[in-house]
């Protein structure tokens, strides 16, 4: 099964980090990517820019707005698609992601969602 791991973070808190704190974080992320690639669980993954544009149809018209789809403090800041035997293995793997290990100061967390089979194929 494939699982989507969405890393949620808070832009302001990330921007408040010092340069060296940010670098240390990047090292962690690169190491994690490398481990995931080596173990064969990685399907695809990337980090995201904060800037977002949302598109939806309202009152019969397609409306494009500046900003994320849902206005909350936490926004998707990265995503990884992994291959795992089941949800518990996906959870185990996601637990190793830096977003699951940073504390309140950085404000990250991770959401794991199964990728439905057979859709749009």
């Amino acid at each position: 099964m494939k699982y989507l791991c969405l890393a949620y973070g808070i832009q302001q808190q990330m921007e408040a980090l010092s340069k060296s704190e940010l670098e240390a974080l990047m090292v962690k992320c690169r190491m994690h990517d490398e481990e995931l690639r080596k173990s064969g669980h990685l399907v695809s993954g990337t980090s995201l820019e904060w800037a977002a544009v949302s598109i939806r149809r309202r009152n019969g018209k397609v409306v494009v707005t500046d900003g994320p789809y849902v206005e909350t403090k936490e926004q998707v800041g990265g995503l990884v698609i992994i291959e795992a035997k089941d949800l518990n293995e996906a959870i185990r793997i996601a637990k190793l992601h830096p977003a699951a290990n940073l504390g309140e100061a950085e404000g990250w967390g991770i959401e794991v969602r199964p990728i439905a089979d057979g859709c749009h194929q």
Partner: protein
Amino acid sequence: MDVREQIEALWRTEARRVYASLVRLLGDFDLAEEALHDAFAAAMEQWSRDGVPARPRPWLVSAGRFQAVSHLRRRARFDTQLGELAERLEHEDAAPQEDVEDDRLRLVFTCCHPELPVEAQIALTLREVCGLTTEAIARAFLTTPAALAQRIVRAKTRIQQEGIPYAVPELADLPVRLDAVLRVVYLVFNEGWSAASGSPADELCGEAIRLCRLLVELLPEPEAGGLLALLLLQEARRPARTSATGELVLLEDQDRSLWNAALIAEGARLVEQALRSRRFGPYTLQAAIAAVHAEARDASSTDWAEVVGLYDLLLRVEPSPVVELNRAVAVAMRDGPEAGLALIDGILARGQLGDYSLLHAARGELCRRLGRVGQARVAFERALALTKLEPERRLLQQRLDALRA
């Protein structure tokens, strides 16, 4: 067979064993799961080059352990605790060649530890011992994968926090601890058995039998053999329990030529062994009852006196109103419906099993045999209102329809 096929075959036969050893060596389920995955990945790389080793299992165990230590070392850059753990693992006795089968038994006893809620014991055993996926277990137990995954995560956390040991219990604790394990096996089988055939829960019966065979093989306790006998004797009736149109067929109406003779023979042998030990318990007695049924050509030629006698014993070992109900049905077969009905009404008069659909179904059947159509209808209707199981609902509806005709 090329190396890839050999490794795939090894995965099917050895992965759960290697995993059990890694849990013991690493003391952590998640670390062991990761190590198992890495060990097979390492095997793929190295064996393609150097060939498959003579004894693949110990190779996989030590490769897994090595991989786990190196993971911990890398992660220790951010978490000093992991460094200490890596240090400890590396310097622990590197000759971990204890009996691997003991590791599987350890894993069973840990997953079925009485400190864990029963639902967690079941989920954990099916995933960690039997190797079922979270999604498959969730489907079988009609719950969401997310809820089931959390149950498993919580159970693992609890094992760590409470320091639940990874060990086969001491002889003094064995009876109580074995009871817990056997109950999990029994519940897994029942869950599969009571589901409509063809549902995702079906495979649970097979898993329960495999698990019980493992127990009997590793821990030759009479009651484990008794439970295996019970499961086999019940499984033997599977081909006859539903009609061609998928309707449930009661024991007395089943076409006994469809019963699986090999399973019955094995079950009967196991029952005899367990009974001879004189250290048997309720599962063995239930199996002995099932064996009496299995040996009879049809319902009327069943040795009902023997069945009643076995229920008497069972009531002494494990008194319960449900056993009393079953005994009442056997008494009805031995002495006539009136005698059985009196016993069932006695249970109800004590305020027990009033909400148990099978009591009302049995009551309805006995009333029907006595020609008390009105009472039979009331009882079947009460049973229908109480059951949630679809096959049972259809059967009761048939009975009601037959009364009207």
